[in-house]
């Protein structure tokens, strides 16, 4: 009964007052993502490396690593919404480590709108899978929650079939080579017929070297997926750019 009262009060309040939208990243009441945070974390003025999704100068196509041939090879393109730092980093960490998957709903609209403006329309979205033991511990896979957000906003079907069969250690402290090695044989496609000949968005929360996306993409390619576009919430910033942004 008390809950009912609270709900009724909420509805009445919504009818009577216009709620000011507070910024997801900084809490200022200036829209879902305030202009300052847009510049600070989403960097619309910068380009994204087609090879690994890193934020680079807009006139460039690839970052230095990818130009040197060190980047992922099995994806058609990778792109990331913003820079993995400050408010965006806190937002992602809060979702993963403080167990707030619901907060992803807050970025549903702006993120989906941005994604569809950056990548070609595809047959469906595939989330980077999580190992069953990690999944049981955390209770949710943030990549799957992001896929579900994209599905609801854009109507793209969710495609299943790829699984993580090996529980790997965290990638955080590893080098580029070690990361690729760490993930070898970690993924497996269970039902190739579901994804054969399709084009997909491969979704994850964060990418740094693109190693995880690459490992999943490799498995998907072997199963006959035609086009793979990597899509992440956040990525790193080209090192050469850093002084410019300070």
């Amino acid at each position, binding site marked *: 009964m008390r809950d009912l009262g609270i709900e009724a009060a909420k509805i009445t309040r919504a009818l009577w007052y216009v709620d000011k939208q507070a910024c997801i990243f900084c809490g200022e009441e200036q829209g879902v993502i305030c202009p300052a945070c847009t510049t600070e974390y989403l960097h619309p003025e910068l380009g994204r490396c087609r090879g690994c999704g890193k934020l680079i100068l807009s006139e460039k196509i690839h970052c230095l690593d990818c130009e040197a041939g060190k980047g992922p090879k099995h994806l058609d393109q990778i792109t990331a919404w913003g820079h993995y730092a400050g408010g965006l980093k806190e937002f992602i960490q809060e979702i993963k480590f403080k167990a707030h998957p619901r907060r992803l709903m807050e970025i549903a609209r702006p993120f989906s709108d941005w994604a569809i403006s950056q990548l070609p329309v595809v047959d469906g979205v595939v989330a980077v899978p999580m190992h069953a033991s990690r999944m049981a511990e955390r*209770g949710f896979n943030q990549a799957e929650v992001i896929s579900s957000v994209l599905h609801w906003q854009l109507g793209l079907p969710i495609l299943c079939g790829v699984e993580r069969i090996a529980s790997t250690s965290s990638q955080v402290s590893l080098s580029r080579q070690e990361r690729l090695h760490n993930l070898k044989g970690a993924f497996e496609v269970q039902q190739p017929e579901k994804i054969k000949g399709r084009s997909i968005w491969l979704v994850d929360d964060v990418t740094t070297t693109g190693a995880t996306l690459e490992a999943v993409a490799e498995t998907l390619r072997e199963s006959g997926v035609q086009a793979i576009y990597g899509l992440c919430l956040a990525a790193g910033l080209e090192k050469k750019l850093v002084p410019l942004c300070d």
Partner: protein
Amino acid sequence: MQFFLTLKEDGNVSFCPFQVMDKLNSDVLSYLSKPLSLETIQIVQERLYRRKLVNFLHKGPKRRDRKLEILKIIRALGWDTQDFTWQELSPASVAGCSDRLDEKRYYEVRNMFNRLVLGRQLSCSDLRSLARELKLEEREIIRLAHSSVEQGSAQWVPAVKSHGRGWQCQRCGETNLEVWPGLQGMAATCQSCESIGPSTSLDVFFRDQRPLLDGPSEVLFRPHWTLTEAQRLASEQVLEFIKDASEETALLWAACGAGKTEVCFPSAAWALERGKSVLFAAPRQDVVKDIEPRLRRDFPDYPLQVLTGTTLVKFQGGGMVLATTHQVLRFWRAFDVVFMDEMDAFPYHGSRALEWGLKHALRPNGKIIYMTATPSPEGLVGVQQGKIRLIRLPARHHRTPLPVPSWERSRHPLESYSCADLWASQIDTLRAAGPVLVFVPKISWIKPWIKCFQRRFPDWCVDGSYSSDLGRSAKLERLRQGEFDLFVSTTILERGITLSRIQVVVLAADHPVFDERALVQMAGRVGRTRESPEGKVVFVSQRRTPAMKTAVLWIKEQNRHAMELGLINADSAGG
């Protein structure tokens, strides 16, 4: 964290965080191949126990297949049991467990672990940080924790439990949680206490159930002060309350600057000598930092645990703990005596989570003493209803009454930042007695008022500060040195600061942010030292609010009470 359900020889169900068992689990016959949440296992245990009772009473079929029975219950709880298999345990697999530390190191680490987790309630992330402090692997610390549980000196509990139709956080008692669809049905995350680490229905807490002290011990208590008459009276009453088994809660209502913390020291020493653990809690770090040197000085050599959000060593040993109320959430039924300082201050006041945490840090039959100069309405209601014992400390050590605020009417609204009114000329007189501290209700008022005072008193050194001011600590240090003639501040200086010869002006004392407690605290900044036991407090406002009247009433009442007990000098009791 999840656990493997184990089936013992006697048909009872238990659990273990690992698949590979060691000798602790020698009576385990088999275990389920997939880990489950602790709450699920506890429900299985409970239902099996209930069935056993029913079977016993109704003489039902004696032996049913336990394994099938268990799987059926788990299935009913919404788990997909298709891939679940029973793994039988052979002696060979037990002996084959090799990931143990070598024997000597293991005992060393276990002793250390047992000493550091006394009375604690720790989340998995807390255990991980303990592992880092002890230079252990996460797996090793979980093993140590689980062996404590197996020996019955600790418990694993679900961090968030389903509670009727909703959920309840087991660390802070919050029932309004964020619910989300998880892999195994609905899950919930607590937002009330997440500042000290996440608490979700998928997590567990490790609760150590041993008391902090294992028996009476010798305590070296060397006070570096002598109690005044007023303090001695209050101190005796506090000790009497702690000895008396009939009441659980007391309120020490002290005049601002009367030295209420020291009043509790003799009782703390008495308790420690008898093997009773003691907690000094305060809502904020600055209060903790203020008390720490005083405790260390008067209890030399006694191991004191000091815990705030910024302490580097999170795990310490000792029967006396000084902590912020947030850190208290990391203890469970650990303390026999709790001294709660500044009970009416932010963030403790009005936080159900911190209040719940403090109550649950108390051992059964433990005693709690709230200390304040400005009791909250709930505290006073408790006193009136006879649930809380009231102990008064109405006088300061220098036997001079508390300065009673006077009221100056402002003709113009104070938002006009004008010193043209009559009250401004009073500031000159105040300055003659000492530096002037001006309180304003809003941060946005600080700069305009500094400018206004600078115009009016061009020769004076005028400045101000507020909570997010970057130069705050440097300015406060200069203020302590007496470098300013006039200092404008928000309520950040309302508590816990003693400034010699200071005089107080409260601008817009009728503003709603200034309740009677804030007004009493601000007035309490005046006359705290022996060198300058007197001073003036001026409330400036357009009207007189009930809060202002109550504040004056409280101060006058303290003085009257002190007068009756002969605790202040009659010649100076003019107020």
